[in-house]
């Protein structure tokens, strides 16, 4: 089922949680809503489900305007962050619930309901546990019961709120692959919310990056990682460093000295230079490079991350070096980014862009360090 979100706005006590959000989800697609806390991703999911009513805008399921329907009529499968399993019902009763509460005209027979529920439990690999109560299951098992329960009503759309948020890292990785396999088998149009970029990039066909109630970028994992559309996306997805620079006649300057990068399509004036710490080349002499004093150095898995202070304002940036590279012993390092992007600090919203680059360390804290 195709889902169209059109100019959606949602206010809580006049504070906009979502602001003019539009999104097209293709039939059978697995899509991730990715963003930091408070970016509006869960609000968007709950609006699609009908658990919240939009202040403005509409949601279409196919050609049908779903925003006029109640949550019961929308026929969506919603998996809650903490599963919300009915604790007084067995696993089987939980999975059958959606079919049992149907009006008698559309309700399958008792036997058919049981068969369907057992079939789903088999699909989520929980056969034999149908008589257990939720309290007797592990976190990962509860997660799978919640998914089976949501799929039992043959939903038009499957919506998952932080599906792996409450699980430990190992279980999370296993379930992630398993969810992808389930999706490929059943073909449900699926939207899931996550703050974990690794999860979003690995699992989803397309990633919707959200920030402050708006969509920053929509694209495949490759697109949002290799071609971030905004400073926020550059900072939020993957590792990145940024430096304030000046552009003059196609040349990129730091403290009036060219650094050997040419930018023909960027207007003259102040700009922010973004690059990833591993997309750099080290230089010996500095006839057009970025040179910095080593401020700190730490080992991150198989590489060494060196923090440099650059220019008079002592802006801090990072570069990544092989673990035994001699440059790590030096007190000054000269380098040049090999892949980079400039975001002009135009007249429009320079402060906001500055704040985006400043708030980077915070965003990195929000995303669990699973690199």
């Amino acid at each position: 089922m195709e889902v169209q979100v059109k100019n959606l706005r949602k206010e809580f006590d006049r504070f906009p949680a979502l602001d003019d959000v539009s999104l097209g989800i293709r039939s059978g697609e697995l899509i991730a809503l990715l963003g930091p806390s408070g970016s509006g991703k869960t609000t968007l999911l709950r609006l699609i489900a009908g658990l919240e009513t939009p202040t403005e805008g509409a949601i279409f399921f196919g050609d049908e305007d779903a925003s006029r329907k109640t949550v019961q009529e929308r026929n969506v499968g919603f998996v809650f962050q903490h599963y919300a399993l009915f604790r007084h019902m067995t696993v089987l009763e939980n999975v059958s619930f959606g079919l049992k509460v149907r009006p008698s005209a559309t309700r399958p027979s008792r036997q058919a309901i049981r068969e369907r529920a057992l079939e789903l439990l088999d699909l989520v690999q929980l056969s034999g546990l149908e008589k257990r109560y939720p309290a007797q299951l592990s976190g990962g098992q509860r997660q799978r019961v919640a998914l089976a329960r949501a799929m039992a009503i043959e939903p038009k759309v499957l919506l998952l709120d932080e599906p792996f948020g409450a699980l430990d890292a190992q279980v999370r990785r296993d379930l992630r692959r398993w969810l992808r396999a389930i999706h490929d088998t059943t073909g449900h149009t699926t939207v899931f919310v996550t703050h974990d970029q690794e999860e979003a990039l690995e699992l989803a066909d397309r990633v919707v990056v959200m920030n402050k109630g708006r969509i920053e970028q929509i694209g495949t994992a490759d697109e949002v990682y290799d071609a971030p559309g905004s400073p926020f996306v550059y900072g939020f997805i993957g590792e990145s460093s940024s430096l304030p620079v000046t552009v003059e006649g196609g040349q990129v300057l730091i403290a009036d000295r060219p650094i050997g990068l040419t930018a023909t399509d960027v207007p003259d004036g102040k700009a922010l230079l973004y690059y990833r710490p591993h997309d750099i080349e080290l230089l010996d002499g500095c006839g057009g490079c970025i040179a910095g004093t080593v401020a700190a150095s730490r080992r991150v898995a198989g590489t060494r991350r060196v923090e440099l202070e650059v220019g008079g304002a002592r802006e801090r940036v990072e570069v990544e070096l092989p673990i035994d590279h001699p440059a790590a012993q030096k007190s000054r390092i000269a380098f040049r980014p090999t892949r980079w992007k400039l975001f002009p600090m135009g007249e429009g919203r320079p402060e906001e862009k500055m704040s985006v680059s400043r708030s980077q360390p915070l965003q990195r804290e929000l995303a669990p360090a699973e690199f």
Partner: protein
Amino acid sequence: MALDHVLGRSPAVSAVTETRGARLLLVAVAMAFLALFLFLPLVAVFIEAFRRGTGTYLAALAEPETLAAIRLTLTVAAIAVPLNLVFGVCAAWAIAKFEFKGKAFLTTLIDLPFSVSPVISGLVYVLLFGANSVLGPWLKSYGIEILFAVPGIVLATIFVTFPFVARELIPLMQEQGTGDEEAALSLGASGWQTFWRVTLPNIKWGLLYGVLLCNARAMGEFGAVSVVSGHVRGLTNTMPLQVEILYNEYNFVAAFAVASLLALLALVTLVLKSILEYRFGDAIAASNGH
């Protein structure tokens, strides 16, 4: 642990452990107090009731006025408890699951019967429905008697016992949140189905517990009922009022016989409460582990 290590203590010994003597003293004082003020009076009630043998005891209970008092008490409880069950669930539902203006005020209001003296609760109804009030004569012109009749007793009892069910449910429902209800709705259940199949089973132990306490208080209430009842023998005397009358007439055996029934009710309530707490505790543990 680290601190214990630094201080050279074994982690198994708690820092707040008292000496053996102090512990014994504390336990002895507490036990003596309980025996003197709670257990002895209870025993005394039964001893007094059976002082002239079982025959006299049963005869005292079979007095028509006493039987009428027992019947009235049961009637009042049978009306007040179900009403407070419904009101309590509604109030707890509203407070725990919705945001609205005046919520804090409503929460405070629910506690009002606890903080007001029962005599005042009774007087409120005298002021409201008495001969000199606005409502009283008007209702009387339609032949409706509130004060010094059964309706007044029921109203006063409802007022006094209102908080029990609501107080019990509010924290429970707040802790459970709205997740389960949202899940049921998203699976297509109607509001009514959601209440019967999801909400009610989730709160059933807490609800039963609240009803039990509510019932005990409804049957045992003296102050508020005393003000509005008028003490008409055989008509508006509940069990606690009957005990007082019999006692004032120096009919000790009959007074203690009725009192023993009330004491028995208290004991049954305590036993059921303990059983429920045991079950209920399990349910809470299960829901927390969930």
